[in-house]
């Protein structure tokens, strides 16, 4: 599983960071950084929750 963020849609509101701070981080420059682009299967449920809860629908999961 690979995390893809559409940065044209992302508005850095850190909803994902609240769910998975070890994977997503909004830094002082107000940009979102992906700390771990290819998390393991154990993280799937949390990442799916991020996909679901991102109000801009900016996060998707690529299976490659």
């Amino acid at each position, binding site marked *: 599983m690979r995390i893809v963020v559409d940065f044209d849609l992302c*508005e*850095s*509101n*850190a*909803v994902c*960071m*609240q769910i998975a701070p070890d994977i997503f981080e*909004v830094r*002082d420059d*107000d940009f979102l950084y992906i700390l771990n682009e290819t998390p393991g299967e154990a993280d799937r*449920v949390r990442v*799916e*929750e991020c996909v*679901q*809860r991102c*109000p801009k*629908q900016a996060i998707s999961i690529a299976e490659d």
Partner: protein
Amino acid sequence: MTSTPRAVTIVGASLAGLNAAEALRRDGFEGPITLIGAEDHPPYDRPPLSKQVLAGDWEPDRAALTDAEELQEDEIEARFGLRATGLDLDARELTLHTGETVGFDGLVIATGARCRTMGGTEGLEGVHVLRSLDDCLALRADLEAAPQRVLVVGAGFIGAEVAATARGRGLEVSLVEALPTPLGRVLGDEMGQVCAEVHRDHGVDLRTGVGVDRIEGDRRVERVVLSDGAVIDADVVVVGIGVIPNTEWLDGSGVEVDDGVICDASCLVADRVTAAGDVARWPNQLFGETMRVEHWDNAAAQGAHAARRLLDAGVGPLMPVPWFWSDQYDRKIQLAGRVRPDDEVRVVNGSLDERRFAAIYGRAGKITGVLGFNRPRHVMRYRALIEQGASFDDALAAEF
């Protein structure tokens, strides 16, 4: 006595309803799930309806929240185009507008809200509200027909976004607000004034402290007469004066309704019945206050919470800090918390002049809310302080 349902039926197939269904599957619920919705479309996202879709930047399919294939994969039985008209809690049966009755075991009520309308405008072409995809496409077609002037009634968040999107299309826009300052009753006068200036900066003809007397026209709207006697020629009118929760179908069912479906702190309405989203009113124990929240984030989170509560009586109270965003022109406005217009307000980052700032609200020594203009990260940081019940002084001293 409360037991665990073997099957779950969800009425209202939008954000809250879909999140309820998907949360059940994510949690491993294997029983049947039925999603019943009045609209013909599969669930779609509403925020783009006043922004990208209305602007013409997105085609409607980009706002889809799911599709038939995904629903099938999750084994969610989708029944769209069906309106529930009655609920019998003893027989555990729903009645649909077709006359069909549908039995249920567990039930999530997620019927959301609809727009308040202005009487006397029925059948007059060019007069719109904006709630559904169909509303959006009808309004979009009217905006594409190069109207002379768009008049928006109500400068709340939806009205403000419609005004901004119409300006973005290069149209002339009047925005009429009954309050002396837009959003004054939500944000207070000082911050409401900032919102007013943003509209004026973008060339909107903003009229405040004045109501709408009449909307006139023959077959199609031609002009709007304001309470101060002013007459504005307009060939498109958008009425954005708030919403009403969709609860009529519960009349006589024994479900308690008072400006929303009354729930307990965990979203439970009755035995094996919960409610979520714009339709639900529940005591948020974090604030010691009963609330009905009309925001995206709440509908998504409460949908999931209400579904989980059905399966597990151990699921506790729902206690979020309400939060929403509104995109207007190039501003991303966000508000978190429960603010009152007479709360103390302090700018803690950026400046009002630049229209890039975070301001926090306080009452009785506590931080109650945070407003951000293009300051999403600050909003989330202060939101965390609100959740922790931080004092106003500590919030003022915090540095992010």
